[in-house]
């Protein structure tokens, strides 16, 4: 467990060169995987492939045929269980098996990925190579889930502190939704950029980004999974290239973005757990310089997240319905529609269908789901406590990861007397840099 930006990818890339071995990396998010591959290619390594649903059929067949030749093979967990992939992997000599973002293994994570829970089996089929599980944030419970799922009996563990002394922690208490927007507007002009503002709603991120971009003298763009690939690449590169001051994003943004100088991370909505929160603020200050996390907290914000959790939970009726419909059809879309369940809920039930052989299957699944809901509500309570308690916020962060000792710099948190003005800026931002098309073309192609 290493904090963001401290060289997790070095941990599997360097051994590959030192020992000249083939490495298989399981990565949960498609966009993250693409970014990782791009970064490896950027430094000049060509022997790298990403096996995921983006890969055109023709390319996939070819890649599988030549799989032995790749130094780094990135793969999504869903792909890893396909027979043709298994067969191709059998022809390889995988000496290092890497599970990236390993906290996704835990079934208590917000985005349940059942295929991640089968990785232990996959590892065995690969001949049990040396296994490396990487994560930036995992509580003790999740770390134990990882050990179990990957069938690691007595692994060596390197657990670094989640504390990032250069990131000051600030919670801003807000009285109304309108005030939240006003304050965000003010911060866009006054607080150091570049920065990221996290929203839980794609629509709100879009709308506010458009509005503030137009009315403030700041370069603001939104980023979320709804954009097409070309636009996503452009936004990401504009941000890396300091053409943007602020990105308004959903949690889809940030994992694979190697940007050193992010000064500020603002949460417009409260994340659903301390892990997500620490992951997201960790994108600030990778250069080690003074940075700040600001959580905008409106009393009752946790209820919105709580309601969402309730909605995601499955009722006994839905579980029964699922069971019934599954006997009629295996078409996922039809089952989802008829039982009135979401894609994630389908994944969960499908997993339990394959792996839970209980006499009272429905009730047993319902009990497991209720446990999961309770667990996630506890995480939410912990997050709410962070926002509302008069205790040093840094202490709350590290204690939620069962750490005790921590160091902090002059700028600890608002409870310890942080002054947000220390993070203000006179800077005018990136500027629109609009120029005529003739000038633009000349700038691109003439020296």
């Amino acid at each position, binding site marked *: 467990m290493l904090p963001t930006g401290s060289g997790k990818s070095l941990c599997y890339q360097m051994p590959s060169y030192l020992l000249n071995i083939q490495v298989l990396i399981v990565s949960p998010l498609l966009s993250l995987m*693409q970014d990782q591959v*791009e970064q490896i290619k*950027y*430094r*000049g390594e060509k022997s790298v492939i990403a096996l995921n649903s983006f890969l*055109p059929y023709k*390319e996939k067949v070819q890649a599988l045929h030549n799989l032995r030749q790749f130094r780094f093979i990135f793969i999504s967990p869903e792909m890893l269980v396909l027979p043709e992939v298994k067969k191709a992997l059998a022809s390889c000599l995988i000496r290092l098996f890497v599970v990236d973002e390993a906290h996704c293994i835990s079934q208590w994570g917000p985005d349940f990925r059942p295929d991640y829970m089968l990785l232990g089996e996959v590892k065995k089929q690969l001949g049990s190579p040396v296994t490396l599980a990487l994560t930036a944030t995992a509580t003790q419970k999740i770390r134990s889930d990882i050990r179990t799922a990957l069938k690691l009996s007595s692994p060596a563990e390197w657990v670094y502190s989640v504390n990032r002394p250069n990131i000051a922690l600030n919670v801003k208490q807000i009285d109304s939704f309108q005030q939240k927007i006003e304050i965000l507007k003010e911060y866009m002009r006054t607080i150091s950029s570049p920065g990221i503002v996290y929203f839980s709603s794609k629509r709100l991120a879009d709308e506010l980004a*458009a509005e503030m*971009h*137009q009315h403030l003298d700041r370069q603001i*763009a*939104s980023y979320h999974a709804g954009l*097409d*690939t*070309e*636009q996503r*690449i*452009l*936004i990401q*590169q*504009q941000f*890396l*290239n300091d*053409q943007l001051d602020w990105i308004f994003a959903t949690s889809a943004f940030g994992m694979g973005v190697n940007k050193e100088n992010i000064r500020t991370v603002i949460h417009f909505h409260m994340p659903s757990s301390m892990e997500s929160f620490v992951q997201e603020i960790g994108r600030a200050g990778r250069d080690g310089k003074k940075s700040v996390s600001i959580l905008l907290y409106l009393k009752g914000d946790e209820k919105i997240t709580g309601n969402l959790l309730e909605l995601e939970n499955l009722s006994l009726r839905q579980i029964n319905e699922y069971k019934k419909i599954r006997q009629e059809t295996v078409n996922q879309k039809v089952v989802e529609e008829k039982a009135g369940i979401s894609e994630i809920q389908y994944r969960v039930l499908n997993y339990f269908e394959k792996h839970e052989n209980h006499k009272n299957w429905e009730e047993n699944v319902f009990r497991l789901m209720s446990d999961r809901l309770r667990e996630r509500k506890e995480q939410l309570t912990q997050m709410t406590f962070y926002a509302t308690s008069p205790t040093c916020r840094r202490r709350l962060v590290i204690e939620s990861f069962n750490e005790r000792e921590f160091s902090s710099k002059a700028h600890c948190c608002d409870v310890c007397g942080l002054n947000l003005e220390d993070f203000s800026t006179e800077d005018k931002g990136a500027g*629109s840099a*609009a120029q005529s*098309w*003739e000038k*633009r*073309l*000349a*700038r*691109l*192609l*003439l*020296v």
Partner: protein
Amino acid sequence: MNYLDAILLMCFRIFNGDRSRSAIYHLLTGKKISQTIQDAHLYGISNLFQTMPAMSRSDFDKSCQNIIEQKLILQKEDRHYILTEKGDKSASVFFKNHPFPRCLEGWKYHDRAQIFWKRLSLLVQTLSYTIHGESRFYPVQRDPDIQRWVRSAFQELGPDRKKKTLRLYDELIQLCSDSRFPDNPDFLIQRLTGYEKIGWTAEQLAAHFQIDSAEVHFRFLNILHYVMAEIDNAHKRYPILHSMQQDLLKKQLIFTSSTEKTFQLMASCRSIPKIAKERKLKESTIEDHIIEIALMSPAFAVEEFVPQTLQEKIWKAASNSNNKKMRELKQAVPEASFFQIRLVLVTRGREDGKWKKYYTENSVLHPSEKARKK
């Protein structure tokens, strides 16, 4: 009313209640089924084929709902709509204030233009970094086919790179400065990425010009299709740009696999009943295949299936009635089969282009589109 609403009004105007609104959705997203392809040609709006490939059904329905509520279209029968007088007026007024995408050639250019744009943007990025002495960058296009093409094109340039970059610059300047260029070149050039300057997204262009993003999309596509036509016609003036899509011209005709088999049989046999028997398919299926082949290949000889005189007769009947309903035509030319009527309509329809006709009518009213450009 936004740009997408206006485009939809155009489609409803042209289909005039003959087709359900789904036909419009399939047309814009470019569904490759024979009904959609035939409609596109029959009604002279193949220009719009596949011009919004990424539009979701729910966005489409929302836009339809919007123009229904504004009483711009009226339900004729179940899910068939006609334009109201207000709708007709609104569309005309809208296109007086917004550029009409008169260069669109969706059916002809869509695939080619997409690939051309991807290659162009990646090649410009590659050359821009190279001439600035930087060989490493994050490519704006991740499609492996596009990357492979640009890599080999780049290598072919060899040590001449600098000179060729300058020539590409000249070609682009020449292209965009031409008096016939249909729109503000910003919509093309500002999207390009290069050394220390990442291109704008459609949303950013929309914000900059304070228009909606569908308008940016159509204006960009309109420019791109203009460019395709221009480098087709004047390839000597644009050797580099032309070479970037030359291989796509030679691409073999791509049919659905069943049509492909019929196509092969047609090399030796022109009899529909014989082909049907050989393939163990219904004659009507073979006829569908032949219609598809006729649409895809410019060299298709209609007279092998419809004698010249009959063609003229069918076409005259079709031109007389505004309505292109099959049954009415069949009554007017009883000696022709339905297949023959369809074949004549789709092949003749190619040059018809109601879409353009609409534009010409409007441009007579307002010839000064250039003057309104930003």
